[in-house]
């Protein structure tokens, strides 16, 4: 069978289109369509200045500050730490000097880079996209090949619009069936990571497939692809379909007119061909997936909300037993207790994983007419200024504020807290973000990952909670 006729995966089609040349050792130089820059990029621009290199294709990049910005205002002076402020200011200066489009804090389009890429239509099927942030895998939800890179690679891409890559292997994860009420994209991806492990997809690009994925909204797909990196994957992708095209139609940077028709015809050729071969196949039944939460310090430590905290005494492998004991100690949990008996101090609804309009609608449907439990500080941090405006147009902000949530400005915020939005040592946070690592939300912080509905239900209950009871009962 000739190479042209051999069935190809979505990944292979994008890969071969972007290959500039191959090195003797098999690494390939890949053309980058779109380079997204956030406010961690200062060291990369410093590298370029030291080498007197300029931007190769500034029109193929855009930058927005998201990590080092306050979420209680749009004024950088509200950041306590001058070094933090300098990071956001550097991106403004560096992008302008390079001729790269900059979306600043005063622009309503500003937001988390992985939220505004799709929102503006910068993220499109068939593109190769990079960003100096591991959650760049998010953009694969629209059928792009998108992955995170390091600082040296950011400098490399700015200077050459290309990046060296070893061709990854492919893995297809098929989720078939119908999701139960109250189960979302976040629960699917946590169930996947629990199944394959935090290193389960190292060296692979994942394509998510199956009826449960096809039936998800674009927001749900973005959440799933976002956390591909937490399974170790280089990237996550979903075949573009009519939902994708409907989402992209009319976005500011989507093609228009005759260009749109040509793009659409091309995009329709991208889904994996029938019979295309993947290096690994994994499958899950959608109906088996319950609302998922993490209890430990790796995203793989996820379990259904109805579970109990693991008991090290029942673990035969001494290494694993020691790991579980250490995590229970750090997390302040008792073996055998019900997850839903774990009290929370903070709630964070936001991050590049779950800060889109559908996430906020889901959380608001749980919060509506209810009150955040006494002693719990609960935040909602929209993913972009436009998500914030949309939510306000729908009255979601009023629902949150009436329930006792803080309604804040867009940014990465408490996911990693480099802007000062931190969880104090020993405090426990129900979070819709992506990492429950030791100290992730601040030294000594304790993070449980979950969906927006579960986080909202936990805020109301004052402990980790099953949102399904609240979703089903009209408030």
């Amino acid at each position, binding site marked *: 069978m000739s190479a042209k006729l051999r069935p190809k995966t979505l990944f292979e089609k994008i890969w071969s289109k972007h290959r500039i040349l191959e090195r*003797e050792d098999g690494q390939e130089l890949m053309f980058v369509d779109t380079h997204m820059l956030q406010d961690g990029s200062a060291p990369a621009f410093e590298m370029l200045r030291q080498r007197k290199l300029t931007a190769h294709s500034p029109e193929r990049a855009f930058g927005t500050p998201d990590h080092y910005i306050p979420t209680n205002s749009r004024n950088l002076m509200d950041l306590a730490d001058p070094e933090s402020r300098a990071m956001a200011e550097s991106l403004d200066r560096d992008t302008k000097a390079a001729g790269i489009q900059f979306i600043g804090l005063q622009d309503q389009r500003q937001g988390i880079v992985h939220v505004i890429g799709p929102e503006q239509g910068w993220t499109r099927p068939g593109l190769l996209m990079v960003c100096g942030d591991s959650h760049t895998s998010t953009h694969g939800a629209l059928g792009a090949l998108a992955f995170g890179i390091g600082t040296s690679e950011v400098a490399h891409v700015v200077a050459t619009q290309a990046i060296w890559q070893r061709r990854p292997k492919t893995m297809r994860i098929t989720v078939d069936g119908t999701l139960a009420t109250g189960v979302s994209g976040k629960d699917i991806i946590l169930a996947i990571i629990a199944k394959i492990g935090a290193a389960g997809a190292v060296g692979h690009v994942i394509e998510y497939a199956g009826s449960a994925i096809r039936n998800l909204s674009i927001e749900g797909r973005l959440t799933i692809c976002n956390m591909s990196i937490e399974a170790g994957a280089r990237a996550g992708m979903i075949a573009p379909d009519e939902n994708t095209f409907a989402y992209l139609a009319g976005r500011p940077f989507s093609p228009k007119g005759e260009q749109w028709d040509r793009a659409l015809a091309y995009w329709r050729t991208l889904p994996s061909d029938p019979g295309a071969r993947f290096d690994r196949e994994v499958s899950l039944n959608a109906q088996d997936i319950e609302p998922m939460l993490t209890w430990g310090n790796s995203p793989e430590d996820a379990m259904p909300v109805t579970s109990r905290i693991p008991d090290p005494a029942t673990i035969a492998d001494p290494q694993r037993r020691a790991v579980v004991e250490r995590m229970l100690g750090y997390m302040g949990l008792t073996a055998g207790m019900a997850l839903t008996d774990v009290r929370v101090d903070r709630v964070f609804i936001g991050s590049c994983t779950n800060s889109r309009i559908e996430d906020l609608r889901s959380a608001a449907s749980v919060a509506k007419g209810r009150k955040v439990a006494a002693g719990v500080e609960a935040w909602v941090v929209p993913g972009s200024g436009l998500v914030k405006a949309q939510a306000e147009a729908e009255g979601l902000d009023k629902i949150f504020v009436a329930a006792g949530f803080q309604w804040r400005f867009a940014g990465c915020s408490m996911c990693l807290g480099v802007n000062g939005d931190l969880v104090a040592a020993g405090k426990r946070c129900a979070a819709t973000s992506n*990492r429950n690592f030791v100290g992730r939300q601040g030294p000594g912080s304790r993070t449980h990952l979950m969906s927006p509905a579960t986080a909202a239900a936990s805020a109301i209950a004052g402990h980790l909670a099953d949102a399904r009871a609240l979703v089903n009962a009209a408030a």
Partner: protein
Amino acid sequence: MQPFKKLEAVALPLTRANIDTDQIIPARFLQKPRVNDFGAYLFRDLRFNKDDSKRPEFILNQSEYVAAKIVVAQRNFGCGSSREQAVWALYDYGVRAVLAPSFGDIFYSNSLKNGLLPIVLPADVIDAILETLARQPGAKIVVDLEQQCVRAPGLAEQAFEIAPFSKHCLLTGMDELDYTLTHADKIAAFVRQYEANPFS
């Protein structure tokens, strides 16, 4: 980039899987300029208490390991955030090689660009090295990039794989970006053809 050829040094055994880059360097140090000594931030919250006093229970604070230049760890070392500062922290501390059954993809790539050699060895070999290091605290390991082998006390010599180009860059201190710039004409030719046919 400083060349890496061969190293014989104390190895630090980290008998943990999934050591994420948030552990290697907490996020609050990412805003520091590169001129700083990032070695001071390495495993900061594992090495030090909030008041900057040392946590004696953390292995890097134990006298046998202070001079470690090699790290041996379990699977998925450097997973999580793409922060290249994790490599800078290891490098500035003095670490020049990390041995593990697998690495976070981005960490692996970042290491090669900074003169830090990531070595993938089978999990049972890593377990054997970790056991040796537990029995002989402060034992030295030899990492020979030219020969692509690792020698640990009491174990047979272990060969490892590395992409020839990456090996060449590490051995000579050559920079990937300089190499790419020599292909600027090929990139330009590609862009012309690509932009002429964006939808095919």
